[in-house]
């Protein structure tokens, strides 16, 4: 312990602390300033940025004693505190809020601190200055467009000018609250550093947990010796397979994933857990892990899904009747042979998409608090940022051999999810450790452990044959898809089903035969990821569309217009579309933006010096809700309080998309309340009813409807009380502006509530909303109750000297049914586009023979602000009859067509078509030099082979 003197946010500190601390650890642990977040511990993501003597630095690798005698400023020091104890937000904080530049909020402190340093040095930054300053400060949610706006706006405010007006998308017919860009209620906490994510919670006596993971991708564990680890002073528990009280398995669909792999059992990927350690400190827990001895009998590795399907491939799960075949998914529609006979042109190609990592900026964290720990914890409680709290509870209970009701899952704020926080991570493990210890235990995954462990986007190989008549009408699609499901099922069945059923694209295709093989391998499991399989098949479908257009000499937009799904069309799964098919309108809008401004001089591709430019188009559709016959329901309750406020409760999760605001808007709209009078409580299995999983773009539709119906129930209850009281028919009552108006008189909402409660009328209404019934694949009928549609057009440049590709602009039109909160919606679209841009241009999670290479964030590049294109996004509101106010899902649709739009644009620019992602500038340039028109390799195919030109 040595004395460290430094000034943090204006306060002098003299601390006796170890010299080994990093600045981030000192701030978070010793000073309790948890606004500074740690995203990677590699100086890659930049979200831990703080100022030291005014300069932004990555505090995760900045030794605390390097700051000796210096001034440190953190996000907690951005706002000013006024004499009366109030808080005056920094203009950056205000403008991040006003421009909706905050979604999950986890990276927000880093973005704002980096921007604050910029504005102090340069009061009038242009876009490039901002991109230079924020280049290495990542955000996975927003897509950065709103961040750029917010910073420009804050700069203006700091210069004494008017802020920039927020970019409000146009909506058709806003209601009282619906259709307005209300702010997420806790938004101020997310810009001040007060917002608490799981790792920001601490309990007295809390121990530190760690997980020992496999050393081999496929092996039998022969011996686990924990003796030396157990005797290390400070170690509190070392648990193995035998310590799992209940069923040693978890899984969202199939229980095939062991909680812990025991002796003589099989590890199936390198993320498999073998032992758990709890210790007094992180340091001791790490040492203990090294003292656990494990002997393995390595087995041959199944490294890719096509090989997995061959007879010689070893079995990933021994004893399964269908071997490595997790699921064969089939779509049969019409008469394929006839379809191809009718075709004048047929194109067939094979496409490849890589494993993609969610890279949510908050690594997984769970805290287990044992039963009876204190008055607030009478039962085993898990704190976790999860997309499916009730299923977590069920999975924990099953493994712990407890009834569900004896476990409570309390959802914390989630620092991004994108589908990656649906499976069990540390939830069961902390329950086991807390239970054994009788003390709270925290399991925080490092970024590196997160990269290794959690399910990813499926890598796919897609062969697709498309036929069309001379007039452009599609006649048939035949496709074969292989999906790499990895070691455990997770949601593979569902994800690959979606890839299969959407493999005709959003078109009227009379004949189709599509086969998909979801295969077990020894790669990391694949599961839910924004776009849910459709992202992959769209990459193949939409490039084949452009190939057809080229063969026919037809404009690519025209080809899509001719074939676009519309009301009355029957999909390849036999579903007759009855309403809300806004695809044609999205095509029309994009076309108008694209060609309307070109004054008849439009070209899909052209050259300027050494740059080739091109536009590329792609369409998409994506189901809302689980579909396929799965019972889809969401429960919510709405309780009115005597003070006139209302609380909405459901277990649904907000991982940054802004569900809190959407639900509050639904309640406010129905009850005629000002938006600010509605509170929302989410994700607590003891206090909130089951809203179901936050997946499949379903929560606005499902929980939105549940809240809406509960609020209507509450309004009806109040109406009947008041109509009796005032002797007026209920339909003469009007709920508006926080009042109930009756025949020229009005009572406040709170008075009405008190009146009803005094009469014994319950003011808490729960509603379980069941989505419209759907049918399983293969049975015909409605497989889904709604689809969202989108068209995107990308502008790219290709440097003919280097092969470097830039996406310069995206024009997007998205049919969302109804825009409940337009700016939040725009945030989903912009964020989804940039995420998919990463899938196209920067991202691939590389695994070599079962052993991940992408073990560091430094080896997995997601798009940074410098990649952000200009995004022009339009909303189309073609309402779906069952949706709340006509709304359908929007979470995934923006991430589906960006990849093929970009690769189609590359072709139109440079004359080379890319069939494998991410785009490899190396192969692209070599193809250009060799006069080739197709590239079938990707970045990860660049190996250490001496290849001379």
């Amino acid at each position, binding site marked *: 312990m040595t004395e460290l003197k430094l000034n943090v946010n204006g306060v002098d500190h003299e601390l006796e602390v170890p010299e080994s601390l990093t600045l981030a650890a000192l701030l978070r642990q010793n000073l309790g300033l948890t606004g500074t977040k740690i995203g990677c*511990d*590699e100086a890659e993501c930049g979200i831990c940025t703080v100022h030291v003597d005014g300069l932004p630095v990555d505090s995760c690798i900045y030794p605390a004693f390097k700051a000796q005698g210096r001034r440190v400023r953190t996000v907690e020091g951005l706002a000013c505190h006024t004499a009366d104890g109030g808080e005056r937000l920094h203009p950056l904080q205000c403008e991040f809020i006003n421009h909706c530049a905050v979604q999950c909020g986890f990276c927000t402190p880093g973005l704002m601190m980096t921007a604050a340093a910029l504005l102090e040095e340069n009061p009038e930054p242009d876009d490039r200055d901002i991109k230079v300053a924020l280049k290495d400060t990542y955000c996975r949610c927003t897509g950065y467009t709103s961040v750029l706006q917010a910073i420009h706006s804050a700069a203006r405010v700091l210069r004494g000018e008017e802020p920039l007006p927020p970019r409000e998308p146009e909506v058709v017919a806003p209601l009282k609250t619906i259709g307005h860009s209300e702010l997420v209620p806790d938004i101020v906490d997310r810009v001040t550093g007060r917002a608490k994510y799981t790792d920001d919670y601490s309990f007295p006596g809390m121990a530190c947990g760690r997980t020992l993971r496999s050393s081999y991708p496929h092996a039998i564990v*022969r011996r686990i010796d924990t003796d030396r680890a157990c005797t290390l002073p400070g170690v509190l528990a070392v648990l193995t397979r035998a310590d799992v009280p209940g069923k040693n398995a978890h899984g969202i669909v199939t229980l095939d994933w062991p909680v812990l792999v025991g002796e003589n059992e099989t590890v199936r990927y390198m993320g498999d857990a073998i032992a758990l350690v709890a210790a007094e400190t992180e340091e001791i827990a790490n040492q203990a892990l090294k003292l656990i001895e494990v002997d393995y009998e390595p087995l041959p590795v199944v490294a890719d899904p096509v090989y997995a399907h061959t007879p010689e491939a070893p079995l990933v799960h021994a004893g399964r009747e269908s071997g490595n075949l997790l699921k064969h998914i089939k779509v049969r529609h019409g008469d394929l042979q006839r379809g191809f006979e009718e075709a004048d042109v047929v194109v067939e190609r094979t496409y490849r998409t890589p494993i993609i990592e969610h890279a949510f900026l908050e690594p997984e964290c769970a805290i287990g608090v044992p039963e009876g720990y204190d008055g607030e914890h009478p039962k085993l409680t898990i704190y976790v940022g999860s997309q499916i709290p009730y299923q977590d509870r069920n999975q924990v209970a099953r493994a712990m051999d407890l009834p569900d009701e004896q476990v409570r899952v309390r959802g914390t704020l989630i620092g991004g999810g994108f589908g990656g926080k649906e499976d069990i991570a540390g939830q069961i493990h902390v329950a086991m450790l807390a239970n054994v210890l009788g003390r709270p235990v925290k399991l925080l995954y490092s970024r590196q452990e997160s990269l290794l462990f959690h399910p990813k986007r499926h890598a796919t190989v897609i062969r697709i044959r498309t036929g069309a008549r001379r007039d452009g009408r599609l006649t048939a699609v035949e496709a074969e898809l292989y999906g790499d499901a990895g070691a455990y099922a997770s949601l593979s069945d569902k994800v690959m089903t979606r890839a299969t059923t959407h493999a005709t694209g959003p078109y009227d295709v009379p004949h189709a035969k599509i086969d998909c093989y979801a295969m077990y391998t020894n790669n990391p499991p694949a599961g839910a990821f924004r776009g849910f399989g459709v992202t992959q098949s769209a990459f193949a479908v939409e490039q084949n569309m452009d190939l057809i257009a080229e063969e026919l000499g037809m404009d690519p937009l025209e080809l899509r217009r001719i074939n676009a799904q519309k009301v009355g069309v029957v999909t390849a799964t036999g579903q007759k579309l009855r309403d809300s098919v806004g695809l044609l309108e999205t095509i029309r809008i994009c076309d108008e933006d694209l060609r309307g401004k070109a004054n008849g001089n439009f070209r899909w591709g052209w050259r300027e010096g050494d740059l080739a430019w091109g536009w590329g188009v792609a369409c998409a559709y994506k189901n809302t809700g689980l579909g396929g016959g799965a019972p889809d329901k969401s429960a919510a309750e709405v309780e009115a309080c005597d003070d006139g406020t209302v609380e909405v409760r459901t277990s649904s999760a907000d991982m940054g998309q802004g569900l809190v605001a959407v639900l509050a808007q639904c309640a406010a709209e129905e009850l005629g309340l000002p938006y600010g009078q509605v509170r929302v409580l989410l994700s607590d299995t003891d206090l909130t009813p089951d809203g179901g999983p936050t997946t499949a773009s379903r929560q606005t539709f499902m929980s939105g409807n549940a809240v809406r119906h509960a609020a209507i129930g509450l309004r009806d209850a109040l109406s009947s009380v008041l109509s009796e009281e005032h002797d007026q028919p209920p339909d003469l009552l009007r709920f508006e502006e926080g009042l109930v108006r009756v025949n020229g008189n009005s009572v406040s909402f709170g008075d009405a509530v008190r009146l009803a409660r005094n009469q014994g009328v319950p003011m808490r209404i729960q509603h379980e909303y069941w989505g419209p019934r759907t049918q399983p694949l293969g049975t015909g009928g409605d497989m889904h109750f709604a689809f969202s549609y989108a068209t995107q057009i990308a502008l790219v440049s290709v440097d003919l*000297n280097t092969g470097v590709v830039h996406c310069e602009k995206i024009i997007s039109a998205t049919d969302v049914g109804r825009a409940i909160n337009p700016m939040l919606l725009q945030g989903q679209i912009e964020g989804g586009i940039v995420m998919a841009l990463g899938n196209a241009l920067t991202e691939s999670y590389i695994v070599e023979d079962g052993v991940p290479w992408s073990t560091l964030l430094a080896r997995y590049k997601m798009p940074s602000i410098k990649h952000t294109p200009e995004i022009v996004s339009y909303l189309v509101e073609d309402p779906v009859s069952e949706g709340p106010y006509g709304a359908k899902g929007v979470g995934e649709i923006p991430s589906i067509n960006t990849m093929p739009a970009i690769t189609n644009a590359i072709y139109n620019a440079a004359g080379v078509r890319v069939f494998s992602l991410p785009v490899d500038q190396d192969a692209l340039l070599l193809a250009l030099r060799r006069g080739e028109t197709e590239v079938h390799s990707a970045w990860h195919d660049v190996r250490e082979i001496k290849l*001379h030109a």
Partner: protein
Amino acid sequence: MSPRKVLPGVVSLYRERLVPLWERYHTPRTVNDALACLARYEGRARLVAGGTDLLIDMQHVEKGEHPLAALVDVTSVSEMTSISESHDWLHVGAAVTHTSIVNSSIVERYATCLVESCGVVGGLQVRNVATLGGNVAHALPAGDGTTSLVALGAEAEVAWHNGIREWLPVTQMFRGPGISALDSRQDVLVGFRFRSSRDGEASAFKRIMRPQGVALPILGCAVWVQLDESHQVLKDLRICISPVERVPVLAAAVEDSLRGQIISDALIRKVASAARDQLGPRASKYRSSAAYRSHMIETLLNQVLPLAIARARSGVARAEGVGLG
């Protein structure tokens, strides 16, 4: 059937967050104090400046004993943190940060390529702490700052643990990829010096990156040129293209084919195209094929040579591309 082999678990894929990575943290004020401090730990301490490479390597990549007994931070040694100019020589301390170099008008004017190379390293937060000495000590075959130092014909000053302080050509600082001639457990890299560009002289740097994977250049190219009085003849030049060899080197054959020649677009194109076929760079896994690197040699020479020549002719040198590398 032979019994299958049972192996102990040795492959460790992700390294646990190693805490602590070091025990003591020292901030000496002089080079001698730094040397003495390192000597006291007898190899159990390491010198650190920005730490942006070292600490990450210690945490996530390196094997070996942890924690280190101490880190010896040289960023408070004043002679190592200054940029100065005297008698046609520019002196840059080893602990000068990339940001300081980028913001230095002297360096921009007299060693433009160094600003251009330091300006594309990492992001702002990294450049604010990462030092030029760290770039050289890390000894990567394509270190950006290193590439420019080699083209500038720079010398490095080393304070060896045995008390000797000497100036060496910067090219002598490398033993192999990632292997420095220095031992950061006992020696101190003090600073760099090079002749500042005079009339008729200039430099330029560019590199090729890819948006995927590790942020190391596919190829970097720094050029220093000296024109004759007519500005028509390349009197002298130095070119560093990296990575080509295991350590950063001058492209002597390319220099020879240009030295003393009358400048023309055709000459540059011819030399660049010859260099593409001659230099024989290697492939790097997940970074570049050898063929692509060969093409990039041509691309970069065709861009950087004319840029440096234009600067030498005009006497105006504004660094390009800083910040968005």
